[in-house]
């Protein structure tokens, strides 16, 4: 008798356990197909979300800050006043994909997320990484295409995953309006009146994202011509002589030291942008205007660049637009002192 019943009880126990485990899951998950084409089961209303890289973290912050379990890297002290207070103190957990893979999966699991989102390049490497981490960590990992051209669509797709469709619609509509406004203005400006631009990075200003690089996309989106045509689609280091030969009409930089010093640097004399005082420092808090990260934060960069590149053609109050953007996307409205710190003047 003992011999007979034991396998039965064990089987019954297993079935009961499986049913218990499956019940809540069946009630709360749904299946989505992400931009890698994988079908993924994820929670109906994700409450603890981990962003795999800086672009995803910024998008997650703008859409559903209350669901963040951490940042990729902890915000710098100068970023904190510009972030919602409840997110400013969240820890930096590390990044999952891309250069410098710094996250220990155990740290990730200790943060107890129910969803991992990534926003950026979709290629076989990232697709495979998403798949591997999903298998290894046992967590749904969703990758959304982060290309600039599909920004409104990316916002809506991410908002849908995070179960905040109204918020997504609000931000996506802003993105669509901004892009349409840029196109409307560009239609009035002939090609030959659009300036050549050099994007300067680093203290010496000699690192530059070449044409085709994700860090320089925004330059082409506002109709300007990035002078840095090099053998890479990434970050190139060039000589000052090369910059002299390119003779850019406008220089956009993300380095405050370079912006402050370039007028006195002998090797930059004679560059039209420097001679004509058209060197502009892109604001960088809490997220960059140009890139760093290449995410929704670039929408305000578009407006800022239009004002800087086409001062006569562009109407409107840049300060008010920046304040509105910060309030809508970041949940923090800058006051007069804040705007002055951001935009200068």
């Amino acid at each position, binding site marked *: 008798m003992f011999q007979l019943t034991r396998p039965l009880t064990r089987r019954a126990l297993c079935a009961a356990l499986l049913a218990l485990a499956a019940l809540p899951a069946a009630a709360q998950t749904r299946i989505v197909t992400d931009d890698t084409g994988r079908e993924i089961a994820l929670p109906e209303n994700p409450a603890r979300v981990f962003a795999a890289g*800086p672009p995803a973290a910024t998008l997650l912050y703008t859409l559903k800050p209350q669901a963040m379990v951490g940042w990729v*890297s902890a915000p710098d002290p100068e970023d904190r006043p510009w972030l919602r207070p409840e997110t400013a103190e969240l820890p930096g957990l590390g*990044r999952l994909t*891309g*250069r*410098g893979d*710094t996250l220990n999966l155990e740290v990730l699991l200790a943060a107890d997320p129910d969803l991992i989102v990534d926003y950026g390049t979709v290629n076989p490497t990232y697709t495979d990484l998403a798949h591997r981490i999903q298998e290894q960590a046992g967590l749904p990992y969703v990758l959304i295409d982060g290309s600039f051209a599909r920004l409104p669509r990316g916002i809506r797709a991410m908002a849908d995953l995070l179960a905040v469709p109204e918020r997504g619609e609000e931000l996506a509509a802003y993105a669509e309006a901004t892009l349409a406004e840029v196109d409307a203005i560009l239609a009035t400006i002939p090609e030959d009146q659009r300036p050549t631009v050099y994007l300067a*990075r*680093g*203290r*010496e200003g*000699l*690192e530059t994202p*070449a044409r085709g690089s994700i860090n320089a996309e925004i330059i082409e989106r506002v109709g300007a011509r990035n002078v*840095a*045509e*090099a*053998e*890479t689609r990434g*970050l*190139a*280091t*060039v*000589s*000052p*002589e*090369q910059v*002299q*030969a390119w003779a850019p009409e406008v220089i956009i930089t993300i380095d405050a*030291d370079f912006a402050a010093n370039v007028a006195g640097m*002998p*090797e930059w*004399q*004679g560059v039209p942008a420097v001679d004509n005082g058209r060197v502009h420092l892109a604001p960088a808090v809490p997220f960059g205007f140009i890139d*760093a*990260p290449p995410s929704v934060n670039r929408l305000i960069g578009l407006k800022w660049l239009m004002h800087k590149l086409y001062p006569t053609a562009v109407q409107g109050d840049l300060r008010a637009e920046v304040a509105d953007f910060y309030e809508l996307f970041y949940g923090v409205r800058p006051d007069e002192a804040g705007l002055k710190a951001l935009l200068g003047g």
Partner: protein
Amino acid sequence: MDERALNTALVGALLAVLILGAAIGPFALSPARIAAVLTGDRSDSQAVTVLLNIRLPRVLAAAIVGAALAAAGAAYQTTFRNPLVSPDILGVSAGAGFGAVLGLLLGLPVVAIQMLGFGMGLLTVALVIALTLALRGAGQVLIMVLCGIAIGALAGAGISLVKLLADPEQQLPAITFWLMGSLAGVKRADLAAALPALLIGLAPLLALRWRIGLLAMGDDEARAMGVDAGRLRLLVIACATLMTAAAVAMAGVIGWVGLMVPHMARLLTGPRFDRMLPAAILIGAGFMVLVDTAARTVATLEVPLGILTAVLGAPIFVLLLARGARPWSE
């Protein structure tokens, strides 16, 4: 070829590559315009900026960096009686590299980064010497070299740690690029800052080159000729370290030149250090100017010098080896 004719030929070749380096670059300047600027014509301010603030300082910097690395390598190979030795054997490049990438990580001004690199290079070698003395290995070259390898490995670990901690978007590309060596950002002020250390290091090597050559025969032989081998070796190390640290602080880590150029010189002059050193200095300067000219002209983006010294240097080196005998064996 006798010594005087050889050195005259090498000086002529160096002048030719200096002119070549001054004549070509991404900013188009006609030879007539260059000649006009050099003879005092200041009417075209753009040409003046390009030539006097950018191109010429860079060509001269390449020449002195090449000369310094070649001289340091030649002195080390003779002093340590080993043809495989390069100027970074006692850890100066790794130490200077660590100092500089630390400066990049901390976001220091460029001058501070250079000073930190220079200082850490000197400190690393000082540490190696102190360690050698503490181990009572002053007379033993092997102990000194092993100490250098150990401390150099520590500095290398420090570099890896800095790379790990660096911001992958902003700092890591700069650090990686710096570690491959480049003169892209060189200014006149950098040249002026590095020149004293290079001259102070080079002068004793040139003045004492005959005595230093005696070290190649072994310490006992040198002593029999009236040379205190231990003290002379320390002097050579101090001079070579000073030059290498200054070169690395200005141009980043450039491999190959210090190892290869002395061999090229030796194939032309034979193994005697007093004859080989001037040839090595001239070849090193000329080779580096050529390499740097390639670095700023073969592509729109700057090609790191470390890549080009190997790509250009390795085939030349093998070719020379195939043609010559084994010139370092007496």
